[in-house]
């Protein structure tokens, strides 16, 4: 690794981060377009019009489409043979600082206890980095998520006893959606994690938000439940911005892990309509491909 290679890596990551604050991923735009076409309430239509006009202007003026560019989270699947593996964490931090100035991103990181805004979107353990190491692989795949305040606020997780179980989980989630979810700039993407302990459920709920809209859980029962939950929650007709309309959610995604016989933990994360999730694969020679925004060169 040379210094110039590391700089190039940082530049790619910064450009990737900045770009994703300004353009929603293809699957989200596609789903929103469909929902807008199906909408017939005048109020809801007005909100969809505003959203699409905002996206156009953001792209035309090269600005973040929502002012809340969130706290940066990166979910990294790094190949054990990726030449810049040792530099990845440091490069992500540098990239965040760079993108904060260049995009520009809002200053969003407040240190706990000392309660001051760091001013560059980095801080203690931030950007948040989640690691998975892939054996026999020399590329890195990075998911970026901008965790906005409004869309993070409904997040919740809880350990239930198996007899309250799955029913309890359904009630827990729907209660949260109809109270807090309304303020999180719907239509929402709901990520649900189910497992045996609270951090597993919470983390899986966020991973569920990283899945492409239109994909289903590999387990048949879970896939059916995703669909049934979408139908049920859409019947509540929360509409864009909570002003009521034909639907409530872009999708419901569930991810699961095995549980302990005595516990059933459930977690929920919500994504807002401005779901800034992006994914890039960077190869050993630093060539790259944006997987969420097809055909884009940074």
């Amino acid at each position, binding site marked *: 690794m040379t210094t110039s290679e590391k700089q190039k890596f940082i530049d790619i990551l910064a450009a990737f981060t900045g770009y994703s604050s300004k353009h929603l991923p293809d699957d989200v735009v596609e789903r929103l377009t469909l929902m807008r076409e199906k909408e017939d309430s005048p109020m809801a239509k007005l909100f969809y019009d505003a959203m699409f006009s905002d996206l156009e202007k953001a792209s035309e003026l090269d600005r973040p489409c929502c*002012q*809340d560019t969130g706290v940066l989270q990166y979910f990294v699947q790094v190949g054990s043979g990726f030449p810049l593996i040792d530099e990845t964490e440091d490069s992500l931090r540098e990239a965040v600082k760079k993108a904060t100035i260049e995009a520009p991103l809002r200053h969003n990181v407040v240190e706990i206890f000392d309660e001051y805004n760091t001013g560059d979107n980095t801080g203690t353990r931030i950007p948040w980095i989640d690691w998975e190491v892939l054996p026999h692989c020399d590329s890195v795949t990075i998911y970026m998520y901008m965790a906005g305040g409004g869309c993070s606020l409904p997040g919740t997780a809880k350990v239930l006893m198996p007899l309250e179980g799955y029913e309890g989980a359904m009630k827990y989630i729907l209660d949260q959606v109809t109270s807090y979810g309304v303020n999180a700039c719907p239509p929402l993407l709901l990520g649900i994690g189910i497992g045996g302990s609270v951090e597993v459920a919470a983390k899986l709920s966020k991973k569920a938000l990283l899945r492409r809209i239109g994909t289903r859980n590999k387990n048949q029962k879970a896939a059916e439940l995703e669909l049934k939950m979408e139908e049920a929650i859409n019947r509540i*007709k929360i509409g864009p911005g*909570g002003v009521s309309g034909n639907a409530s959610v872009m999708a419901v995604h569930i991810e699961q892990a095995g549980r302990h016989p005595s516990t059933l933990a459930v977690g929920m994360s919500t994504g*807002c309509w401005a779901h800034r999730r992006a994914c890039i694969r960077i190869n050993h020679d630093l060539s790259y491909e944006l997987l969420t925004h097809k055909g884009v060169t940074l």
Partner: protein
Amino acid sequence: MNIKHLTTPIKDEDIMDLRIGDLVYLTGRLITGRDDVHHRVVKQHRELPVDLNGIAVFHAGPIMKERADEPGKYDVISIGPTTSMRMENSERDFIRETGVKLIIGKGGMGLETAEGCKESIAVHGVFPGGCAVLAAEQVLDVEGVEWPELGMPEAMWVMRVKDFGPILISIDTLGNNLFEDNKKKFNEVKEEVLPELYSQVDYLK
């Protein structure tokens, strides 16, 4: 759905006939104010750096950029509403103490704010959430920034706007509350759909 154009200073009679579900476009002056600004006004009783009588408060934390050639002069890059509910505990006092007539944010506010709108004659409306470049393009000029030590999102930015909207009235001067009404409806349907989901999740063997 009536449409009305408001110009600051807003007088009581300009907003008395607005009803929830109406649309408003604002021309004139607004300030941004969220958690910390409310805290300073309502809890710390600090002296207001700007006269808020008859203008609008926007629950928003923008992305601003200082002009390279004009230090101290800012442009708005991106500004959208933040969750109004966070200000619920202080909004009633805030309206009374400042004389603001239009509160703009996203999502609904609660009973206390509705009471405040009734007693001090004010309305709350929502700007479509996340539509931050749309909103930025409706700002004519950033007149200044007060309390900059609160940081970019929390500071009080003073702006002039033109045809700023759409703003959907969600609390009117009678205390009607669009989002509270919606929530009741949402909860009714929730109770209907839950048993259907329960029958779907009978997985235990």
